[in-house]
């Protein structure tokens, strides 16, 4: 069996980050866009923890802690905004959300 190195973890989180980016760019359902953002945040967390383990330094883990806090706040407010949008526009398609245009 091969040895698992830091590069494996970095590669994995890069691939998952890319999947998240593709999700944000290609999907039109606002809920799935938010989920793709969560994927990207988590892949960044994995990078931080992998480096924290590699460098034997706890600071990376503390950063992950705060990232999770911010992600929770983001989801709370974001989903409230989604509900307000749905109440007013009856749609979740971001292509229809152009009320700020002009």
């Amino acid at each position, binding site marked *: 069996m091969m040895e698992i190195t830091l590069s494996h973890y970095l590669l994995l989180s890069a691939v998952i980050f890319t*999947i998240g980016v593709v999700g944000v760019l290609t999907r039109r359902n606002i809920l799935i866009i938010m989920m793709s953002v969560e994927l990207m945040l988590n892949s960044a967390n994995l990078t931080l923890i992998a480096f924290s383990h590699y460098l034997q330094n706890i600071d990376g883990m503390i950063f992950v802690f705060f990232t999770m806090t911010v992600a929770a706040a983001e989801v709370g407010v974001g989903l409230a905004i989604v509900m*307000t949008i749905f109440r007013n526009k009856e749609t979740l398609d971001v292509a229809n959300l152009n009320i700020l245009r002009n």
Partner: protein
Amino acid sequence: MQSFMFILLTIVTLFSALMVVTRKNPVASILYLVLVFFCFAGFYVMLGAQFLAAIQIIVYAGAIMVLFLFVVMLLNLRDMDNVEGKPNAWQNLGIFAGIGMGLVILAYLSGSPGMSIAPVGNNPEVYAMGSAKYLGKALFMDFVLPFEIAGVLLLAAVVGAVALAKKKRA
């Protein structure tokens, strides 16, 4: 053993992440995302961050995903199937942008040396680093100001969410 677990978790994570992005039904996406979060918790354990793995399951798989499910449930999504129409030009462009970005990252990482990462079980000191004791010490001594600011941020988020979700008196 560790490399076997890594490969297994990687396969499940990549499959579920792809499913999150490609499923039409948001509920299916949410359930696959829960699976992704569990796999990430597995990676955290393998990297010696047991406390963060527990937090990952409680906060992400528990709280955040339940919030997503509740929103899908509360919104009456009968006509959800036709939310996604035909892909337009910028959506196709997004796929190419993503592939390009992936290639750039691959090219960069293929040049980097395989930095060895010690298995957690071999070193008790590393194993202890991710425990609640050491995290708590760092959090309440060196990082106490960011901790307080995070608390204020959460309070602001709560107030904002309530203010946004409240029904307007018309």
